[in-house]
């Protein structure tokens, strides 16, 4: 009667150990898939695609809002009345129906108009945040949203520019933001806002060339511009680039965001995950074994006392 439980006990210990190993194995495989960075996954033979972007020259913008109109048309959203200049009285944010807005700022060098929209970061926080890859950084640069989204809205606090907007009033809500006219790009067209701009304040092209262009404009007319391209280094670089005649904090930009890409902030935590998942169970199994009462020893070695 007394012996039986002990046998079960040892067998159970092995079972537990086996269960732990199998569980650990499953977790390990899953995590292997999870934590092997994409760059190791055999895509090296494909030639790299350059990011495209848009250069906004705020010294050229006259606040005509043609871009807002074209944007709304391209995205099938309510088209704003662009002759109405009263909208400039208050600073506006983009919204679920306005993916880009132009604001007017009174600065030390007079009126400046600035277009805002998703910045299409090189390493976007929203993409790193998304647990179903509904937010995606496309190979050529645009950051787009898709319908497998859960609506968790984690992209919203993770965006340094707070661009993802959520349709709270809908029972089938979407995240709305500029997609750099992803559909138009696929068809070989330029983004709607760029096409609509009558003042050539917007330039579309490969990001590398846009930076060259911006630098040459700054170099050729040093009095017209401050020597800073907003978006060249901010949060690791953005697809949208801005040049201006006044410091950027005067025209509504956050200048305190730093140059570290946002996904870097949670990287350290994510790197610790496989370590914890491997070492913690091993440690716990060890402790569990060490604290085991010695009835096994008693049985093997006969009487100990």
């Amino acid at each position: 009667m007394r012996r039986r439980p002990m046998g079960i006990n040892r067998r159970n210990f092995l079972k537990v150990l086996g269960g732990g190993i199998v569980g650990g194995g499953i977790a390990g495989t899953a995590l292997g898939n999870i934590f092997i960075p994409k760059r190791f996954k055999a895509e090296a033979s494909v030639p790299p695609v350059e990011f495209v972007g848009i250069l906004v020259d705020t010294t050229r913008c006259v606040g005509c809002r043609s871009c807002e109109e074209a944007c709304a048309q391209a995205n099938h959203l309510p088209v704003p009345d662009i002759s109405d200049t009263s909208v400039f009285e208050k600073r506006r944010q983009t919204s679920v129906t306005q993916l880009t807005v132009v604001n007017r700022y009174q600065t030390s060098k007079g009126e400046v108009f600035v277009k805002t929209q998703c910045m299409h970061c090189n390493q976007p926080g929203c993409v790193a945040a998304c647990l179903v890859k509904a937010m995606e950084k496309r190979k050529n640069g645009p950051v787009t949203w898709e319908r497998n989204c859960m609506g968790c809205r984690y992209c919203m606090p993770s965006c340094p520019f707070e661009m993802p907007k959520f349709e709270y009033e809908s029972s089938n809500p979407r995240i709305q933001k500029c997609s750099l006219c992803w559909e138009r790009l696929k068809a070989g067209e330029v983004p709607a806002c760029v096409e609509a701009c009558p003042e050539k304040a917007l330039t579309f092209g490969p990001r590398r060339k846009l930076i060259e262009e911006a630098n040459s404009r700054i170099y050729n007319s040093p009095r017209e511009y401050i020597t800073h391209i907003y978006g060249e280094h901010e949060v690791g670089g953005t697809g949208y680039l801005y040049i201006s005649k006044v410091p950027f904090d005067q025209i509504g930009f956050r200048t305190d965001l730093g140059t570290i890409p946002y996904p870097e902030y949670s990287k350290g935590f994510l790197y610790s995950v496989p370590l914890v998942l491997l070492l913690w169970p091993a440690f716990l199994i060890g402790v569990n074994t060490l604290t085991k009462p010695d009835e096994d020893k008693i049985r093997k070695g006969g009487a100990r006392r």
Partner: protein
Amino acid sequence: MKAASATTEIKNLRDLVAFIQSELKPKGKIYTPFNVITLPIILLGFVLIVYRLVKGLGSVTNLSQEFPWGIWIGFDVMVGVAFAGGAYILTFVVYILRTEKYHPVVRATVLNGFLAYVFYAGAILLDLGRWWNIVNPIIGNKFGVNSVLFLVSWHFLLYMISLFIEFSPTIAEWLGFKRVRKILGSLTVGAVIFGIALSTLHQSGLGALFLMAKDKIHPLWYTQFIPVLFFTSSIFAGLSMVIFEGSISHKVFSHQIDDRHHESFRQIVIGLGKACAGALFVYFFMKVLIFIHDQHWALLATPMGYWYLVEVFGLVLLPCFLFLWGVRYENIGVIRVAAILSMLGIIINRLNISVIAYKWYVPWSQRYFPSWMEIVITMAIILTEVWVFRWIVNRMPVIQESPEWAREDHRVEEGVMTGKEVPQWKASAM
């Protein structure tokens, strides 16, 4: 004092159905003050939940583009999961360290943890704008493997399963399934080990969610060590919850417990109080280190700075001292007060990071305040959990003792030895 199951044996499916049918009926009085007050709230809450699912988030919540996360995340999930931390700590103490003293409270704590995950993590479903897509990260309608939330969602799922396995022997005892009980019991230690690893990661993972909100959270609260702070605070949050919940349970379910266990519960509370004091002090120490390291002295003399001091001194250091005091003088009352204070501290801390110190620069008029409907739904979820908890405790051997047949295996398979057992076992080996 015996579990109901001990009376009849279930031999076939018909018996099982009949048994469950008989158990589904309410036990005890129906028109108690608690029931009369809580039932309308629960019903109203469920009406609002349906309304929210049909009409969208904006119809019920005060969430905005500025404040995408409200109390359903900041309170239900962040606080609920921290309070459920007691399960992984107590299972560690009882099944890994084999400290038999805490065995009497482990089942109630595991049950509480399991229900907390089901209900509060389940509350995420309401907060998801596109809730029908909740299975996507699980079925692989794209694995967003770089996301902290991906990790948290998988861990929630796996941990719920672990907790269920840890609790399942109780269900088997209730149904009188001896063989099944044995098999399930043998899985416990494995589930515990897996569960502790998962808990470590998702308790800290909930904090890591805010790492990318660097520019939005007040510098006194934002630190790269948020995950470590969340993990450490989940220790005393969970244990304080065990003290709090245990104290209430021991009053409400007093008839299920004999005198010997009443006295052992006193000692358990004192032991837990000691652990809480330790964890609180470690947490306080880390807070101070981070504060000094970040050099935010100037920020203390601002309204947010005062609020920070209230949190750190009033709701971390003060309960730490109260716990010590209560342990030193074996004063259960003081320990309970300390537990409530430290729980309040957790609520304030999680809400600070997710709501209050989140975009502290936004003027009052545009700030987020929960709507009455958000609060009612939250209350309905908590109360439903309490109802389910009560239903289970009244039927299964959670607080009351296991049936006689289960007790023997119990000790043996967990390798746990009480003082009495040792000489018996050793004698038998000789």
